[in-house]
């Protein structure tokens, strides 16, 4: 976003607008943050956002005692969080922004993982990493990554073309069926996928190979002796991909595409009548969501180096949906928080025997996670269906111009009139920009 004022040459007068004085001090923190953030130039926004991301990236390296997990490796948990966060972002495009309930999203995750598995596992008849294959062992994973994304996106196209004409609730069931079919196919086509035996020794990025880390930093056994192990590296990789995907999805959101998606979600018929080619944009949402799901699946296959159908149960679809709904449908940062909760909380309790001042059986709590998530879904839907961080989408590329114009008069409001503007939500929504 280059400075819009300069580009259009029109809103020069803005700076000269008389601003009613005296109100500024009384704006709520969230508003002030948002105003401040919106007034920053793009480079400054980056300058603030990047350290925050770096801080997040350092979390599994520092492992603060109260935050780190006990029963499992925090780095590994964060790696899983990264993958589920990607999934949540992808699913959010479909469910949160376009309003298409996809209960078979795990199918795309599986397609992505199996694409990598089939092309790089020595167990697969289509393995391309060995003799005569066109993939070098060193770059196999990175080379297959775009292929996995593309194939998953195509699978989204294949599923979406016939089904996206259906009503919303039918679509939910069809996608559920699709998710199951993908898993059952992976199970039944055992000459290809080895069925329940799974595909092992899937390729992973061979980076940072050295004497101490013979297979690179992404290999299963890697650890630098301290807190940095392969899980942390996978987390960093996912974080990088999350930022890239967020930029892309953000660009889409603040454009005609995002407006069309939200319009379809709000009122599909009205959108169609207002000239939105709804089918085409629903298909785009499906394809983009699928591609992101496939990307996450490819990460999964690389990290675990082992793909097997049981990991792609429908119940995982529900868990992904949980992440999106919990965090706040439509809000990119919200669903990332949702993914964090879904992954982190059960792991947090795992192996823990005390929490604050109580003695607890952490394993039992972790065991009951679906019960808790189910309850959370019901309660949330009744009392706060918009999720923890409600959506505050920005749908105009040059929307900042309007925000700045609104600012002049806004300071007239002495107090935050609604009082419901969660500081976190605005912060989150803005960082995503």
């Amino acid at each position: 976003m280059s400075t819009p004022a300069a580009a259009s040459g029109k809103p020069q007068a803005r700076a000269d607008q008389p601003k009613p004085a005296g109100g500024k001090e009384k704006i709520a923190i969230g508003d002030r943050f948002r105003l401040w953030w919106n007034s920053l130039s793009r480079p400054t926004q980056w300058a603030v956002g990047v350290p925050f991301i770096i801080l997040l990236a350092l979390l599994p390296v520092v492992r603060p005692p109260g935050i780190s997990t006990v029963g499992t490796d925090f780095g590994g948990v964060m790696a899983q969080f990264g993958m589920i966060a990607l999934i949540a972002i992808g699913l959010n495009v479909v469910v949160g922004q376009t309003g298409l309930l996809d209960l078979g999203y795990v199918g795309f995750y599986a397609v992505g993982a199996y694409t990598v598995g089939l092309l790089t596992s020595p167990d697969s008849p289509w393995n391309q990493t060995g003799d005569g294959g066109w993939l070098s062992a060193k770059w196999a994973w990175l080379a297959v990554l775009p292929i996995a994304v593309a194939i998953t996106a195509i699978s989204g196209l294949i599923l979406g073309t016939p089904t996206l004409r259906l009503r919303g609730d039918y679509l939910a069931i069809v996608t559920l069926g699709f998710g199951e079919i993908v898993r059952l196919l992976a199970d039944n086509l055992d000459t290809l996928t080895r069925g329940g035996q799974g595909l092992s020794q899937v390729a992973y990025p061979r980076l940072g190979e050295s004497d101490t880390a013979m297979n690179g930093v992404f290999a299963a056994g890697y650890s630098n002796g301290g807190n940095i192990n392969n899980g942390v590296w996978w987390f960093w990789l996912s974080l990088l991909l999350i930022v890239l995907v967020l930029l892309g999805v953000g660009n889409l959101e603040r454009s005609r595409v995002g407006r069309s998606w939200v319009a379809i979600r709000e009122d599909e018929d009205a959108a169609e009548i207002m000239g939105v080619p709804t089918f085409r944009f629903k298909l785009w949402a499906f394809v983009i969501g699928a591609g992101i799901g496939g990307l996450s699946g490819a990460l999964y296959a690389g990290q675990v180096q082992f793909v097997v159908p049981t990991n792609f149960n429908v119940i995982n679809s529900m868990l992904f949906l949980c992440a999106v709904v919990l965090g706040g449908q439509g809000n990119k940062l919200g669903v990332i928080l949702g993914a964090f909760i879904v992954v982190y909380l059960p792991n947090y309790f795992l192996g823990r025997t005390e929490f604050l001042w109580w003695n607890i059986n952490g394993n039992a709590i972790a065991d009951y996670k679906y019960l808790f998530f189910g309850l959370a879904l019901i309660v949330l839907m009744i009392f706060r269906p918009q999720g923890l961080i409600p959506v505050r989408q920005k749908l105009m590329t040059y929307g900042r111009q309007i925000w700045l114009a609104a600012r002049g008069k806004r300071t007239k409001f002495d107090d935050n009139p609604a009082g419901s503007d969660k500081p976190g939500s605005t912060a989150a929504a803005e960082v995503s920009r």
Partner: protein
Amino acid sequence: MHRVAMRGALVVVAAATLTLAACGSKSADGGSSNANAGGGGTTQTTETGSAGGGAAGSAAGGGDSSAASGGGSAAASGGGTASGGATAIKPVEQISPEGAKVEQKSASNAANPAGDGKAKCSGVNIGMAGALTGANAALGINILNGAKVAIDEHNKANPDCQVQIKQFDTEGDPQKATQVAPSIVNDKTVVGLLGPAFSGETKATEPIFSQAGLLSLTASATNPDLTKQGWKNFFRGLGNDNSQGGAIANYMTKELGYKKICVVQDDSDYGVGLAKVVTETLGDAADSSCAAKVKTGDKDFSATVNQIKGASPDAVYYAGYYAEAAPFVSQLRGADVKATFVSADGTNDPQFVKQAGNAASGAILTCPCGPAPADFAKKYQDLNKIAPGVYSVDAYDLTTIMLKGIDSGITDRAKLIDYVKSYEGQGLAKDYKWDDTGELAVANPWVYKVG
């Protein structure tokens, strides 16, 4: 008015049900109290475990598994007669890879975790990794409890060497396991690991343990591939699927003289691998026209049963878990298929007999695990409040081996690996001596029969 009437009817029915349920729980108590006590096993999601993931409960097969004890009399009618007496899984014999019977040694020379009581150590612990929660928890808990018996005996006898067992829950999920593994490695007090329990998670995590030079001694992961990866730290404390499958196949053709056998497999790693070995070893005796595949979680096998009925085989070999084996054998018998039902450790569980009832009788089940001697079963019961299950004895033996290593003064991981590599001795379940790859030098499975 209708509304009132309907509400009233609802309340009456609900109250009646509750009353019935309340009375009933008392009268039916005797026969059902241990319906779940033996622990669970896989239900619908088998995860990736290849080691008898579903196997749980008492493999001891002794009289203590009062699975279907007594024919329940229908109290309400007074005249109810249920067919069926006490059936249980009983050990028959130990067999060699060729299917021949092997003479058992007495267990009196088995290694004792108590040692001489003079061991000195501090800050040395043993880790245990396996599913402790989730659908596959039963197996992990059997192993953990078996290990606890050994630790308990050791710590009581050796006041100067108190060893703890640190539990790490993997849920049997490979991805979860890769998250847990670094925690185990980073806990420097853990010198040896009992586990991982399943083959899938072992595949995923062993590079981590291998890299860290941590002894990994599994009591239940039976996938043959695991010892072919060149891991120097991995030892398997029981026979793999090949030894079990090969032996039972030979046993069926040579000892029992079966000519025609239908091999049915489920879709788990375990079932697929086992069925492959059995089919290969059976050779011509395996009838491909009635070979079938089923799914974990299936309860209806009508097509497969019909197929088998048409082939009239001497035996049906099922490679899979008890949750499917029980309805499968019931439906086979219901369709008047008289062929012997043969299966392996996945089915070797009291739940199998409970759920299949009389249909299970005569079934032949193998297990690389040995039956629990009576005094072990008693100690186990006293400590853990439930009966020992599949792999409990093996876990006890393996923990004992690690404890003996610790008692001999070993405090670092590399030395413990060396100790196990050169170990040779008798345990409660079998003799322990490993070859270069980490397989047991002699691994003879046990044959059990439901009767």
